[in-house]
């Protein structure tokens, strides 16, 4: 059953052709078999099987939801009671949360079964998963290529069919970029749709939870269980529950798709451009209208992001002091020294780098020049999207400039790594829903992603447009060799 989609698994569970326990056992066996990929950080079969037995009991009692018994892997940024929650950092080695994140709670309430916690960049900071304190994750399509990041474990797990769905988080592209590099579907909703309760904070005005799946249809089904208002998160949006599958049957004929010319400039590799142009042509063939749009300041997204995200991260990560939880240094002189050494030992290079940038831009005399300035340019970028959406329903373009790069290629040069998120950061700054869907293969036969962005709260429209493409193409059904 491992190659089946969430929709197919849900039907099989409903028909009784497979039980939640059988399904969980099959995935657990695969996770064990492919553990060399390093996608999973914590697997506890007894916990998973107990959840699966509860799911089967829910069904027997007639209380099953659409997703009862469907397995899910959680990015190790969501805290969980029954699995360790580390944010892929030594700082939280072995940390056991006293509560479940809201997203985890919502999915468990629907009867979904947790397969374990998946690897990511430390505190979700990175674009290659090379920043994990627990080792890199292999791209299932090419063992020498990165799976993308920060949600690299989520992407690899879904691409290798070690889980039919995985949760993920996006701050500047951490769902869309790994989805593109790993040849799967990834979506982040509008900022405020998913509760951030229990999601280990990186940059609070940007962080948003989403999912990695095989298809847009699957993502829509999972969103129905996962998203919703949560009074415990002060930025959670209070709106009536929605059916995210409602536009899956809507044809794209008549839809206007904006193509930002700035996303096709210098730096975009020809293999990626060819696959993306072919996908746009498919939309045209289905009756959508392509229009040229401009996002002239989108390229400022990277400098804006690398002021705002580090500023918020330096504030959020100040909670790690070696006192209440987390790593404490073994040797120190006094309290101040204990805190400094605990933080120096617990954090890896990238979180430290961002804490330092953030501390600087927020320090006395620099706040206006950096942080406020970046927030003003952030608004310019967000306003440009609103102008663009007056001319189109959806914005389409590449997710990344190239296919997945090799291990070590960008690790020594932070700025070149940061540029990996050139096309995804602008939408994150604006807080818009965005996704990546597989649209072909490029250099070294590695997958290419098509980025689709919709206006605020238009996830259903976005998922519908992605689904219509996936009905006409089979890129999303392709699987890496060697995972059978």
């Amino acid at each position, binding site marked *: 059953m491992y190659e089946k989609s969430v929709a197919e698994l849900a039907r099989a569970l409903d028909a009784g052709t497979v039980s939640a326990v059988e399904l969980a056992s099959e995935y657990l066996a695969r996770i064990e078999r492919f553990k060399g990929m390093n996608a999973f950080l914590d697997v506890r079969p007894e916990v998973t099987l107990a959840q699966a037995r509860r799911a089967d009991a829910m069904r027997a009692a007639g209380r099953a939801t659409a997703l009862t018994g469907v397995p899910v892997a959680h990015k190790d940024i969501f805290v969980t009671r029954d699995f360790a929650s580390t944010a892929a950092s030594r700082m939280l080695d072995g940390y056991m949360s006293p509560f479940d994140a809201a997203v985890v709670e919502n999915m468990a309430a629907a009867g979904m079964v947790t397969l374990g916690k998946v690897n990511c960049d430390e505190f979700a900071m990175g674009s290659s998963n090379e920043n994990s304190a627990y080792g890199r994750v292999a791209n299932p399509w090419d063992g020498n290529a990165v799976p993308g990041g920060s949600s690299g474990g989520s992407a690899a797990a879904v691409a290798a069919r070690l889980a039919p769905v995985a949760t993920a988080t996006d701050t500047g592209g951490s769902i869309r970029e790994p989805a593109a590099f790993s040849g799967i579907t990834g979506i982040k909703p509008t900022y405020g749709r998913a509760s951030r309760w229990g999601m280990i904070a990186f940059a609070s005005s940007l962080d948003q939870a989403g999912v990695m799946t095989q298809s847009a249809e699957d993502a829509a089904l999972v969103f129905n269980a996962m998203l919703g208002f949560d009074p415990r998160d002060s930025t959670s949006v209070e709106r009536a529950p929605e059916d995210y599958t409602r536009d899956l049957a809507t044809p794209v004929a008549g839809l206007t798709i904006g193509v930002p010319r700035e996303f096709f400039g210098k730096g975009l590799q020809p293999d990626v451009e060819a696959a993306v142009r072919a996908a746009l042509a498919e939309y045209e063939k289905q009756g959508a209208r392509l229009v040229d749009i401009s996002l002239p300041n989108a390229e400022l997204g990277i400098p804006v992001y*690398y002021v705002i995200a580090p500023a918020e991260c330096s504030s959020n990560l100040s909670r790690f002091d070696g006192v209440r*939880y987390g790593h*404490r240094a073994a040797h120190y002189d006094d*309290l101040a020294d204990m805190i*400094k050494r605990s933080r120096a030992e617990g954090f890896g290079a990238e979180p430290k780098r961002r804490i*330092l940038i953030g501390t*600087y831009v927020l320090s006395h005399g620099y706040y206006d020049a950096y942080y406020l300035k970046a927030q003003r340019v952030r*608004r*310019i970028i967000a306003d440009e999207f609103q102008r663009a959406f007056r001319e189109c329903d959806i914005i389409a373009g590449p997710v990344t400039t190239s296919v997945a790069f090799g291990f070590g290629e960008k690790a020594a040069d932070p700025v070149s790594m940061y540029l990996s998120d050139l096309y995804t950061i602008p939408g994150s700054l604006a807080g818009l829903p965005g996704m990546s869907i597989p649209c072909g293969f490029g250099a070294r036969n590695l997958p290419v992603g098509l980025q689709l962005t919709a206006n605020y709260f238009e996830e259903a429209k976005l998922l519908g447009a992605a689904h219509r493409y996936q009905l006409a193409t089979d890129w999303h059904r392709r699987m890496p060799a060697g995972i059978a």
Partner: protein
Amino acid sequence: MSLSIDDVTRIAHLARISITAEEAHATLAQLNDIFGMIERLARVDTEGIEPMSHPLGGAQRLREDRVTEADAREENMKNAPAREDGLFLVPRVIE
């Protein structure tokens, strides 16, 4: 603008992260690269533009000031590196 080694040491102190001289040197070059990229923002005309602190704007929601959490002291302290009698332990700060 270019940072100096003293800047890096001062920032690391403000961030409460101990840093060796060797690390400070390696970090300096990277931070200067990153700030070199960030400097571009200074050239953008942002006259009259409100800073955007949050994608959806608006005021933060407030809740009623009442007890909502049950007492879970033991569970909330179980990850503490050092504790005793329901208290977090830190090195002596008052002689």
